[in-house]
């Protein structure tokens, strides 16, 4: 069967009709759930701000459960599926495999998301995103997640199928592009993740229905985190692919070394999933040997992967900019970067915040012993808002500014809003992360309605600084929510009312000569990247200092054996 496609005037990519529709559907649902989940998030931050204390306790725990599911899972995974279809069908110029199955996957995911949301909103499933046994949710809560997971699994196989078709029909030559390679890594990790989820959630469903009498809590946590943490590693692989994608499309950047960047992605496939250990470092019944090996991803080999991308992504941007003539001093390439283009600014802010806030804090709290002073404090959400919101969500927002003209073929409305949005959102999320981490070091617990504990029999007073931090967190959440609101207005508004783009009005995003800016590497055209090396140096010094400062903090607590 022959399928219809168009050639995008801007990029020269072949876009098939069925792919385009699938990407649109998945991206639109993703953005809707981002809006819903984001509102829940704002209400949580305002509740934990002592002076506001917005929600009553039962609504707080309900909103917290819904927030985790809707943004951490539904928004991110729907968007990732759109990215997978883009990275296979669009980038390889190939028709999508079994579009009907892809639509079935979409339907299952949507039904699953709705079923779980209804279960949560009914009020008898406030078990948090983690749904630790023996907290029991309504059976429909687990049914929804399982349906969603099955849909995602099908979508991953549609992606793999598309890769096979592209290879067979020879729509590209040589190896797949780096972005597709990264997306493949994300999809492989997704299959592992979803298998872990099925292994633990199917018995839990049966338990909630009364067919199984007992589920061991330690087993639950061990297997569940194979799903819960690994799903975040899908995000890492996906948003790093997007960093490469945006720098290629906006600046015409080319990887400094295909070999090094692909090697770094490969380390993810092999080692990232060991990170489920990060959640089990202070649990009984697990040996320190197991903890040390797994928490370090087998001697930090996945961290090595991320540290490599931390050099190669800004490095390829610097190289591309220098080839364009921004060659003065260390940082002209960075100063003269397209900071007014929200795709670029969003991508670069995502890169910086993910590395400095999310990456460093993640490694430090994953040290077996340091976890003792961090486990289940609000430091933990502080860390993962830096990775998943500042890193993944902001990268996804940035790439959306490219998808709107490319896939929806609409011009952005309110360009001024679009321009400011990544900065506002980035600032808000950076505040959320930093202040939650700060409150965490003062012992403030996560998932807690009221740290002033006015009604407790044996109250405990947190230091005033803790309340100050939680207030600042609330204010940052307002900024982030404003940034999120602007994103949704711009994107939804553009899709509905933006000026239609046809072949005659298309404006090239990158000047054509950019496609070959960085010449073949190894020759004299290959520019040095002193600015990136300086940035990486600053990063590394911060990393080392923060790492040892936390050992010092640990050394000050009561001796434990």
């Amino acid at each position, binding site marked *: 069967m022959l399928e219809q496609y168009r050639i995008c005037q801007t990029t020269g990519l072949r876009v098939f009709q069925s792919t385009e529709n699938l990407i649109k559907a998945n991206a639109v649902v993703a953005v809707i759930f981002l809006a819903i989940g984001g509102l829940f998030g704002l209400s949580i931050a305002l509740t934990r701000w002592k002076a506001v204390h917005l929600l009553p306790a039962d609504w707080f*725990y309900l909103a917290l459960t819904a927030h985790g599911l809707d943004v951490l899972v539904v928004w991110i995974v729907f968007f990732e599926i759109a990215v997978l279809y883009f990275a296979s069908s669009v*980038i390889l110029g190939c028709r999508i495999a079994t579009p009907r199955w892809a639509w079935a996957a979409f339907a299952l995911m949507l039904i699953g998301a709705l079923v779980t949301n209804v279960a949560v909103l009914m009020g008898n499933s406030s078990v948090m995103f983690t749904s*630790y046994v*023996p*907290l029991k949710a309504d059976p429909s809560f687990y049914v929804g997640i399982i349906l969603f997971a099955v849909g995602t699994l099908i979508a991953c196989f549609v992606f793999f199928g598309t890769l096979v078709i592209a290879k067979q029909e020879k729509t*590209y*030559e*040589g190896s797949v*592009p*780096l972005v597709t390679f990264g997306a493949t890594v994300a999809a492989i990790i997704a299959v592992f993740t979803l298998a872990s989820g099925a292994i633990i959630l199917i018995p839990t469903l049966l338990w909630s229905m009364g067919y199984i009498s007992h589920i061991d809590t*330690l087993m639950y*946590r061990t297997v569940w985190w194979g799903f819960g943490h690994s799903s975040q590693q899908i995000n890492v692989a996906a948003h790093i692919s997007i960093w490469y994608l945006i*720098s*290629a499309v906006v600046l015409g*950047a080319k990887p*400094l070394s*295909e070999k*090094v960047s692909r090697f770094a992605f490969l380390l993810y496939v092999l080692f990232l999933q060991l990170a489920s250990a990060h959640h089990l470092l*202070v*649990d*009984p*019944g697990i040996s*320190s040997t197991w903890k*040390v090996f797994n*928490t*370090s991803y087998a*001697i930090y*080999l996945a*961290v*090595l992967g991320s*540290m*490599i991308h931390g*050099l190669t992504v800004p490095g390829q941007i610097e190289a591309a900019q220098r080839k364009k003539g921004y060659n003065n001093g260390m940082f002209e390439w960075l100063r003269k970067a397209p900071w007014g283009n929200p795709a670029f600014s969003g991508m670069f802010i995502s890169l910086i915040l993910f590395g400095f806030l999310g990456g460093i804090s993640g*490694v430090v709290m994953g040290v*077996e*012993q340091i976890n*003792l002073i*961090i*486990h*289940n*404090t609000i430091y933990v959400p502080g860390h993962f808002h830096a990775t998943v919101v500042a890193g993944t969500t902001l990268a996804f927002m940035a790439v959306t500014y490219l998808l709107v003209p490319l896939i929806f073929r609409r011009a952005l409305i309110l360009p001024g809003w679009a321009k400011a949005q990544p900065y506002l959102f980035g600032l808000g999320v950076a505040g959320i992360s930093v202040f939650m981490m700060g409150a965490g070091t003062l012992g403030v*617990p996560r*998932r*807690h309605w009221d740290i002033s504990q006015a009604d*407790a*029999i*044996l109250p*405990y007073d947190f230091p005033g600084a803790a309340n100050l931090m939680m207030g600042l967190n609330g204010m940052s959440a307002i900024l982030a929510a404003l940034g999120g609101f602007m994103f949704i207005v711009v994107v939804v508004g553009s899709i509905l009312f933006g000026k239609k783009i046809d072949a005659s009005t298309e404006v090239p995003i990158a000047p054509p000569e950019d*496609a070959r800016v960085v010449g073949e*590497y190894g020759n004299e055209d*290959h520019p040095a990247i002193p600015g990136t*090396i300086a940035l990486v140096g600053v990063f*590394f010094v911060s990393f*080392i200092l923060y790492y040892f400062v936390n*050992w010092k903090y640990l050394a000050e*607590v*009561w*001796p*434990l*054996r």
Partner: protein
Amino acid sequence: MSVSPPQQKIWWNEPVPKSELIWVIIAFIWGLIMFFAMVWWHIYGEQNLSNESYRITAEDFSAKTEAMVEKYKVREESGYPVVHPPPGEDIYLIARLWQWWPILELEKGQSYRLHLSSLDWMHGFSLQPVNINVQVHPDYEMVLTITPDSAGEFGIICNEYCGIGHHLMLGRMYVVDERGN
């Protein structure tokens, strides 16, 4: 570009730029240092979790705790027994919906074998302001030897969500300078 196949078909034979190679080596060595830091701390550091834990039923743990309370109770506070066991003793702390029971009174600079378990759901032992955080499971008894090195009144917060009364689940621990003070 990253959105097109590698320019060099045989990309895996390309030389790696020096700046990248050096960074990969530095990052790898840093990983080794961080890995062995954890091992080193197990040998020389003072804050490590023991690997000692047992399976136990809620009834058995409850009975052990009550025996300790009966033997070493010194007074009562807000309906909670305050227990002052002799140094070096095995001490027990129950986590249940929604309390930490009983109140332990320890002596500064002495070591105790603290046994932690939950009688119902999962809870999070969070000793404040010291900031020691440990996961507490039902059916598992975790044993850690603690040596309080500061005196005063300490709060025990639950930091694992355990239902609607989670934020009310608070306990207390006292550390006194010498016996009775």
